[in-house]
């Protein structure tokens, strides 16, 4: 393999994993925009997506094309439940209190998954059959195309939703100014619930599409959550487009770090670059530096 094709290979695998980080980051962003909460259970939504699909397939005997949407749907319902049970009754409490509640929720979801599914590692079959495709000396798994395609579709769908639909505009209004939004007759509570549903949906989607490439287990959510958080900070917190781009950049950095530096230090390489960037641009790549209200 030539140096160029090796490099291309790193970028391709980086984009694949990075797309999932991007979807996780998108989930963080949607909830952050309506509530200013960093949802620590976001990684668990991703984990649940993968695990539920595996179990629908294995034990439920549900065929793959049905198992995937089923898993995503269930996780979306979990997202709504999380909001209704723990976030909505706590309106007006400090953001930090709410964040600790999401930490408790992530412990609950992880523990529940461990009890239900056990501590083993599982994998999901690829969405379509066929061997790897060769592009410029690098190999591309068909699943990579699924990952990139579904991520792009999701981002495009989100863009249409936020710009073209009334609910989407209402959610953006809540993100700008909750009080003003509620004075305009927007039901802020419903928008928060919707944002939890959305973030669970995109998180689960990320988990499902990645499961055939990397393995999944009850505790993969922690690391995916950390990477997703890093991705949305890298892109600039609150910017959905930045979140996805941040995820892809983080994935590629990691993959290059693993290939060119060392696989053990790959995460360290990504985080060193992330920190370096934050020191130069303290509000991320695409984050607007807002004036602070005194």
């Amino acid at each position: 393999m030539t140096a160029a094709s090796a490099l291309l290979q790193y970028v391709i695998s980086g984009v694949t994993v990075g797309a999932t980080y991007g979807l996780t980051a998108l989930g963080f962003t949607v909830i952050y925009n309506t509530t200013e909460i960093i949802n620590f259970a976001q990684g668990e939504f991703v984990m649940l997506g993968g695990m539920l699909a595996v179990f629908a397939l294995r034990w439920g005997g549900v065929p793959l094309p049905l198992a995937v949407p089923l898993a995503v749907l269930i996780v979306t319902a979990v997202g709504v439940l999380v909001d209704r049970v723990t976030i909505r009754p706590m309106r007006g409490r400090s953001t930090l209190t709410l964040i600790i509640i999401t930490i408790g929720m992530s412990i609950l979801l992880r523990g529940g998954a461990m009890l239900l599914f056990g501590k083993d590692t599982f994998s999901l079959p690829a969405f379509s059959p066929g061997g790897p495709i060769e592009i410029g000396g690098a190999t591309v798994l068909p699943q990579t195309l699924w990952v990139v395609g579904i991520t792009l579709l999701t981002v495009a769908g989100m863009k249409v939703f936020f710009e073209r639909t009334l609910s989407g505009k209402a959610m953006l209004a809540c993100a700008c100014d909750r009080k003003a939004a509620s004075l305009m007759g927007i039901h802020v509570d419903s928008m928060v619930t919707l944002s939890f549903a959305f973030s669970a949906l995109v998180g689960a989607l990320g988990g499902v599409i990645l499961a055939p490439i990397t393995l999944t287990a009850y505790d993969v959510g922690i690391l995916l959550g950390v990477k997703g958080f890093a991705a949305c900070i890298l892109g600039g917190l609150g910017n959905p487009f930045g979140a996805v781009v941040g995820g892809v950049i983080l994935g590629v950095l990691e993959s290059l770090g693993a290939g060119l530096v060392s696989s053990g230090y790959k995460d360290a390489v990504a985080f060193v670059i992330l920190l370096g960037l934050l020191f130069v641009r303290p509000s991320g790549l695409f984050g607007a530096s807002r004036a602070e209200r005194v």
Partner: protein
Amino acid sequence: MGFRGGHNAGVLAFAVAAALVPFALPNDYYLTVLIVGGFHTILVIGLNLLMGYAGQVSLGHAAFYGLAAYTTGILTGTHQWPVPAGIAVALALSTAVAWLIAVPTLKLRGNYLAMGTLGFGIIVYIVFNEATSLTGGPSGFTGIPKLSFAGKVFSSDREYYYVVWGAVLLLLVLSQNLVRSRMGRALRAIHTSETAAAVLGVDTNRYKIFVFVLSAFYAAVAGVLYAHYVTFVSPGSFGFHTSVQLVTMVVLGGMASIWGAVLGALFLTFLPEALRAIENFDILVYGAILILCMMFLPGGLADGARKGWDAAAGLVRRGTHGAGAGKGGGR
């Protein structure tokens, strides 16, 4: 707040209670848990100075804890240094690293600061894992000598308990004096509004760096005590999970409350031990208790305890009143 005015009495009562507890314990297992609770208390008092008073969140505090533990472990274990020398260098190194990190990181705000400290914590954790020749890698570092000072080796749990809780007491008094000083007022001003504090002439950057370094020093003290107690360190004890757990202890105990820090640390140290009996379900119950505490005790355990105490005192007063006057003394 509830102990205002009587805080010396509070410290004295706490010291007496801490000194007497070992005599009331049924077995050494509880002593071990209390020693670990002491490490957590030191860490959480330090982190509360940073989070509760100055309003700066750190998601990488376990790194300083681990840095000190590994430094003294390697110096005394591999290089056969005397324990006090290893400890001194470990404390100095962790404090220096904290300062180096604080200067650029504290320019970040809110979630960006959380991310900066989290990133630092992850980098340190990866180094513990990967620098195998130095740290022993994922399987850990063994052969750290027990704590000793001028020929005296602290090898029994009971002796160690007094060393650890002596340190807790010292750092607790130090923190109490600090938050009541001019510096404490400056930190609270920064918490309320950094811009307003700066306008009023508070050198916000200097104070933020100072309190960050101080809280890292507390973590380092806990780290060296941990290393020479367990005589073994491994990366798992100093990862992201530990950092998050420390933040949880601060918030659950009560922000800007030193007694809250003690309560939060001890509660979350004992809870998993108490839940051990219901194996596998313990995680679920732990998560549920955490959520319920946060939902129903908005001011944290310290605030909850004070309210509970006030309510109980009110009931007692009402009870004696009622009996004396012959009819219900409602108010």
